[in-house]
Every structure is written in C-alpha cells, then in structure tokens.
C-alpha cells in the first residue's frame, strides 16, 4: 500500500529536504520503518534507543494522533500520515 508521509520543516534536513515521502506498509509502524529505510538519519529523531517512538513524537493518521503504543494501527492505500513532534519554545 502506498502512503504519503508529510515531513515537517524541522525534520526535512533528515529527508534530504523531501516534504512528502512515499512509503509502503499495512500499518503505521511499517510505513515509518519504510521511511527510515529510505532515510536512515531520521531514525534518531523518531525512535528512542529502546526502539520505542520518542514520547514527544506522534503520528497523525486519519484524524487521530498515534503514540508509541499505536504503531500497529492499520493504514489503507492513499492514506496520509503526518509526523508530529512536541515543541515548547516561546
């Protein structure tokens, strides 16, 4: 299944400036894994050393925020994911 992953500007340096990355997979986690396969440097910005999603990163998919425990959420062809991270500056 072909999924589009939207990359925020903050993370574009890790995707060779790609704003949208095409990925395949049947779950959110598989799509993120495919993103990392294409752009290995982004892994440290998404996953902690223990392999879990960083607790300040979430994935927005089909109207819901998905956190570390939701990577098995299924996706369907044509879905769009958004990488979302917490910011706190003022």
């Amino acid at each position, binding site marked *: 299944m072909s999924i589009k992953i939207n990359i*925020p500007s903050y993370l574009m340096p890790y995707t060779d400036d790609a704003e949208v990355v095409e990925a395949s997979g049947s779950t959110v986690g598989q799509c993120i894994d495919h993103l990392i396969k294409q752009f290995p440097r982004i892994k440290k910005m998404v996953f902690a050393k223990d392999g879990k999603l960083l607790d300040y990163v979430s994935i927005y998919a089909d*109207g819901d925020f998905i956190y570390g425990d939701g990577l098995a959420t299924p996706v369907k062809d044509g879905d769009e994911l958004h990488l*979302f991270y917490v910011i*706190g500056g*003022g």
Partner: protein
Amino acid sequence: MISEDDRERYDRQIMIRGIGEAGQEKLKQAKVIVAGGGGLGSPASIYLAAAGVGTIRIVDHDIVELSNLNRQVLHWDKDVGRNKVESAVEKLSQLNRGVKVEALEVTISEANVSAIVAGFDVIVDAMDNLPTRFLLNKAAIEHNIPFVHGAVFGLEGRVMTIIPGKTACLRCVYRGFTPQEKFPVIGVTPAVIGCIQATEAIKYIVGIGKLLVNRILVYDGLKMKFTEFTVKRNPDCEHCGKSSRER
C-alpha cells in the same frame, strides 16, 4: 459603560459584527493573564492591550537580555538588564492608558500556579518550556479558566484553545517532554502565533466566532502553510481525564 474616549479609540473594532459596544464593555471588564513576557507574550499582550482588555497580568521571572531582542518586541535596547515585567508594564501602559497592567515577577511553580491564575478569565500560555505549560494547563482545568496554548520553534508554531471540562487539553495531545535546550526562533514566528493567541482570547471574551478547540493549528513558516489537526479528549488524561477528576 464604555466612555466617549473608548468609543473613539475602539471605533473600528466596535464596527465588527458581534463586538459592538457590548463586546467592548466585555473586553474592558476582562482579566487576562499572559504567562511569559517574551516572544509570544510580547505580541499577545500588545494586541490585548490595544484591543482594550481591562486587566492584563504579565508573569515572568527573567531579565531582558540582548539575545531576546530579535523577537521580544516589548523590550528594547534600553531595557537590557531590566526585569521583563517592568519593561512590559511600561510599554503596555504607554500603548493604552486605559488598561490596568499588573507585573508579577515570579517563577511559576506547582506551589504558586493556583494563586497566580485564580480569578482570571483567560490564560495565555506564552511560556518557553513544557513543564510550566503543563502546570498552567492543569491549573486552568482546576480553576475552569480557558487556556490558549501557543508554542514556537524556528519558523514553526502551534496554537490550541482549551475550554476546561469541554474540550481536549494540552496534556491530551502532548504526552511527553522535549529535551530542555536553547531553541532556534526568529521574531516573525511568535508574532504570528502570539497574535492568533490574542485573537482567541478576544473571541472568547466577546463570545464570537469559532474557537480553536479540539484542534491544533500548526504553522509552518518555511512552507507558509497552516495545517489543522483534530485533537480528541483522552479519557485517561492525567490532567482532564476521568481519573484526574476523581482525585
């Protein structure tokens, strides 16, 4: 009742459908706390004062540094080394003599947050760190005070309005803490976000329009794009969820 002077000063906004003299009176009676007198707090408080919000309390514990001046437009070259709240009160009072501006030079903590926000109608979250934002979010829920969150990083920003007991809160969407570090920013980003926060506060006070509730607005200045994400209440939220209400 608003005065003749008010009628002239606020003439253009009184013309806005839904504001009128009644809305202007609501703004005059309103008490807004702006937590943080920096990048976000500057534009937010400037536009709240210009709009005639009757009481504005600015809370900040910092002094003005030269490196603040690229974005914290309440503070000028002459203010370097001065308390931010003093500098803010001076500018806002000069901008609008009809507004009461209170300075609170304290560090917001778990021990004092409740006393700081009590009695206010709206809290504008203009902090520069997540732990304090979470303290304010929780206090807003406990005191049933609407909370307008804003945050920036580089050329990106976020805004979300929380109506306690009714809509998703900051903790529903932000589950973790980012590492505490010096963050990049240019003044135009908090200018955009702080003005949206002020807009939300004004709309809430007057009772017009559609608030940014149950959705978070993400601004990306590099792409010049606004994206809106739906936010749902987390039933297990430690601030507004069922278990927190039972405690």
